[in-house]
C-alpha cells in the first residue's frame, strides 16, 4: 500500500509538471518568430532642392536600408550651382515600416527641430527656416544660398524634446533635447 502510494505521488508530480510545461508553452509565451523591427528606424533622408524661379527638382539622399549596423549607409554628394538660392525641404523615411517620418515631425513640431551647420568655406548659407506652432524654428523647409564654387560639408541634426521646453535660443547640443538623427553630406558648389 505504502509503495503504491509512493508511485501515485510520483505520477502526480510528473503529471503536474507536464501540465505546467504545456500551459507555459502556450501561444502567448512563444510568439511566432517575426522579422525584427526597429519600429522607429529612419532608413532614408532626402533633401529636395528647387531653384528659385524654376520647377525642376534635384534630390540628394542619405540611405541606410538595413538600419544601424550591417552595411554602411550610402551618402550622395550634394551638387549645387554657384550663386543661386534654393528652396529646400527635408524628408525622413522609414522604409521598413513604409512610413513618412516627416509627417510625424510636422504633427509634433513643437518638440522637434532641425539644425543645419555648413562647414566653413563650403559657400552655402542656410536661412529662412520654417517655424512650429509656437513660432520657434523647425527647419523642415529652408532656403540654401550658394556663393562661389567650393567643396565642403553640411551637418544636419534633428533634435527631439521628449520633455518639451523648446526655445529659439537652444543650441544644437541643448541638454533639454536628444538626437534623433545626425548626418553629414559632402557638398559641391560648382
Amino acid at each position, binding site marked *: 500500500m505504502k509503495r503504491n502510494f509512493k508511485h501515485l505521488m510520483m505520477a502526480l508530480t510528473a503529471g503536474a509538471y507536464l501540465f505546467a510545461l504545456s500551459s507555459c508553452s502556450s501561444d502567448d509565451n512563444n510568439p511566432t518568430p517575426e522579422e525584427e523591427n526597429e519600429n522607429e528606424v529612419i532608413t532614408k533622408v532626402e533633401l529636395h532642392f528647387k531653384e528659385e524661379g524654376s520647377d525642376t527638382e534635384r534630390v540628394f539622399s542619405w540611405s541606410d536600408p538595413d538600419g544601424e549596423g550591417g552595411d554602411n549607409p550610402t551618402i550622395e554628394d550634394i551638387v549645387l550651382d554657384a550663386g543661386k538660392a534654393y528652396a529646400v525641404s527635408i524628408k525622413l523615411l522609414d522604409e521598413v515600416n513604409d512610413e513618412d517620418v516627416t509627417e510625424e515631425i510636422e504633427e509634433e513640431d513643437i518638440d522637434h527641430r532641425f539644425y543645419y551647420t555648413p562647414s566653413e568655406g563650403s559657400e552655402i548659407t542656410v536661412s529662412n527656416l520654417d517655424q512650429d506652432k509656437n513660432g520657434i524654428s523647425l527647419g523642415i523647409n529652408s532656403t540654401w544660398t550658394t556663393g562661389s564654387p567650393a567643396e565642403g560639408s553640411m551637418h544636419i541634426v534633428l533634435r527631439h524634446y*521628449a*520633455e518639451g521646453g523648446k526655445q529659439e535660443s537652444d543650441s544644437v547640443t541643448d541638454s533639454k533635447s*536628444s538626437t534623433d538623427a545626425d548626418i553629414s553630406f559632402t557638398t559641391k558648389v560648382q
Partner: protein
Amino acid sequence: MLNGHITDSISKQGIADVLILINGTQRAITDEHGDFHITHLCSGTYQIVTTHVSYRRNTKSIDLQESMHLDLSLSPIANQLSQVVIHGERSPEKANTGIRKELSGQQLDQTRGLSLAESLSKLPGVTMLQTGANITKPVFHGLHSNRVLTINNGVRQEGQQWGNEHAPEIDPFIADNLVVIKGVDELRYGSDAIGGVILVNPKPLAHQPGVNGEVNAGYFTNNQQYVVSAMAEQQPEALPALSYRLQGTYKHGNNVRTPDYRLNNTSLEEANFSITAGWKKAAYDIEAFYSHFQTKVGIFSGSHIGNLTDLLNAIASDRPDEVYTSGKAFAIERPYQQVAHDLIKLKSAIYTGNAGKLNLQLSAQYNDRKEYDIVRNNASSGPQMRLDVGTYAEDLSWDHTAFHGLRGTVGFSAMQQDNQYQGRYLIPQYTSSSVGAYWLESWHKNRWDVQGGVRFDSKAIHTTRYPYNREPISYNFNFSTLASSLNAAYHIGTKVKLNLATSLSSRAPHVNELLSDGIHHGTATYELGDMSLKPEKAWNTSLGFTFNNCANTLQADISLYYNHIDHFIFQQPLPDDPVLTIAGAFPKIVYQQTNASLKGIDASVGYRPTKNWDLLAKASILRAYNRDLDDWLIGMPSDRYSLAINYHFNDNTVLKNSYAGIEVPAVLRQTRVPDESIHGVQDYKAPPAGYLLCNATIGTQVHTGHQPIQVILSGNNLLNKRYREYLNSFRYFTDEMGRNISIRFKYTF
C-alpha cells in the same frame, strides 16, 4: 570536546544517522556504530536534542567542562506511519566548508523593502552594479550577471541576467536568509559559478499544527516609497501531512531625490506573490511552489541618449537639465522596463531507509521582459524590445547514507530553454538544452571537515535571427564544461576554524556574448558579439579564518581569495572604428577574451566589550587584473570599509531587544582602471571621488499585545552627502540618492 554513543533502548545496538542538535545551532550525526564527536565546543551549559526517523525525540541538558562522553539510549517509535518526522539531515549548505556568508535575522530585517542586491551588499565582498537607484545587481568578488548563479528557493533563476540593466526578478521577502557561497556546494547548481552562488532560501514549511504569519510594512521618505508584505501559513490539525503558505508583496515608490534635485521618471512599482504547499510523510515528502514577480521601473529621462554627442554633453554638465529634475509625479513614462517572472516548482523526496534519499525537482520558469524607449512618435504604444524566455529544468539526485564516514549526493540535471524576441534586435531567438551530472562527497572526522565534488555539463544552443527583409540566419553552438572543487576545514581548539577551498569552474559564453549586434543606448556604444568565444575557465582558491571566543564577545571572519580566470570575456572599446548610423557615429565595443586574475580580502571583526556596546568593522578589497594586457580590468568595485557602533538597551517590560547604532561606510575612489596612455581611452569619465556616508538605525520590539511588534527606524546618507558611485552607470549623469529616512514594522503571529 563532546563524544557520545547512542543506542536503541531495547536492542542496545548503536543507531546510525541520529541528528544531534546543540543549542539549536551546532549539529552532528552519528556514524554507523552510533558514535558522534563534536570538537569545537566551548565550556558551558548546552541543550542537546537528538532526533531520528524511528525514535522518540530526546532532550537533555549537559554541563560541559573540558571534554565529556555522553551515552544516550532512544526508544523506538511503535507506530511509525502515523508520525510526522523531522528527518535528521545535515543541511547541505550549512556544512559548506568553502566561502559562506549569510544575511538573516536582525540584519535581514534591517534591509526589508530594499532590492535583493541592496540587501546582499550588506555582506563583505558583495557590492552592487547599478543603473540608477532602482536597477541593481549583486556583484560578488568583482563578478556578476552570468558568473554568479542565483538560486531562488532551490531553482536556478533563469531570466535575462546577462544584461547590466537586468536586475534579478526575485522578491527578497520570500527569503528567510540570503546566502552567498563559493565552494563544493555550487556544483549542485552548475559548472559555471565562476563568481559564486547566491541562495535565496525561504523558511521551511511549518510542521506544527496551527496558523502562523508575518506582516511587514515600510516607508521611505526619499522617494515616498512604501512597501507591504504579508505571509500566512497553516498546518491543519486534521491533516498532519499537509502544510501551506501564502505570501505577497507590494511596493511603490516615487521619483528619487539626490541632495540637490529630483530625478524625473525614477518611480517603480512591484507586485509579487507566492504559494507553497507541502505534503510530508515518514517515507516521502512533496512540495509545490509557485511565484509571480512583476515590476515596472522608470528609467531617469535625462539618461536617454540619442548619440555619442548627447552622451558627451550630458557627461560634461555637472547636473542634469532642469526639464529632467522637476517632476514629482508617481506616473511612470518612457523610458521604462516592465518585467514579469513566473516560477513553478515541484520537489519530492523519497526516504529509502538504508539506501538514502531520492530527490526529484521539476521546475518551469517564464520570463517576459519589455523595454519601452523614448519614441519620436508619441502615439506608439508598444515596447521597442521584448524578450521572452521559458526554461524547464529537471533535477534528480540521490543522497546516500553514511558510508565509511562519507556522506554525499549523486545528481543528474537537465535544462531546456527557449528565447524569443520582438522589435529591436539585441540577442537572437534561441533554444538551448543542457545536461549535467555531478557527484559530491563530504567527510567529517575529529577536527576535519572535507568536501569534494565534480560536475560535467554539456550544452547545445541553436540560434536564429530574423532580420528585416532578409533570410533568417542560424548558428549552432556546443559547449562542454567541467567543474570540480575540494574544500577542507580544520578546527584549532574551540575558537579557531581554518578553511582552504579550491574550485575549477567553467562557463560557456552566453548568446549575448556570441551574437550581440546593436546600439546600447545607455552607453552610446555599438555592441558586437564574437562567435569564436571559448568557455571561461576559472581556478578559484580561498583561505578562510574564523575566530569566535567562547563568550561570543570577539568574532573575526577573514577570507582571502584568488580567482585565476582564463579566457575571461569582457568588452573592449574600439574607439578608432566607429559605426555610422542615422543618429551619428557610435564607438564600437566588442566582446573579447583575455586572461584575468581577481584577488582580494574580505574581513569582518566584531567586538562586544560590554553587554551594552558592540563594534563591527568590515573591509572588502579587490584587485582585478588583465594579465594579457598587463593592465587593470574596467568596472571593478573599489576598496570599501565600514565601521559600526551599536548600543544595546536593557530590556524592560514593554521594549525588548532595543538597540541604536551608527554605521559609517567609506568607499575609496577606484584608481585601478585601464591605463589610457597605453591602451587608449576606455571610459567616458574618470571614476568619481571616494565617499564617506553616515547611516543610523534604531530598533526595538514592542511587547504590548499578545505578539511583539518590531519597529526599525533607519536613516541612510543622514548628512545628505552628494556623491557618485563608480559601479553605477548613472554616475555619468546624476548624483546618488540623498538622505533617506525609513521606518519598518514587523508583526509576527
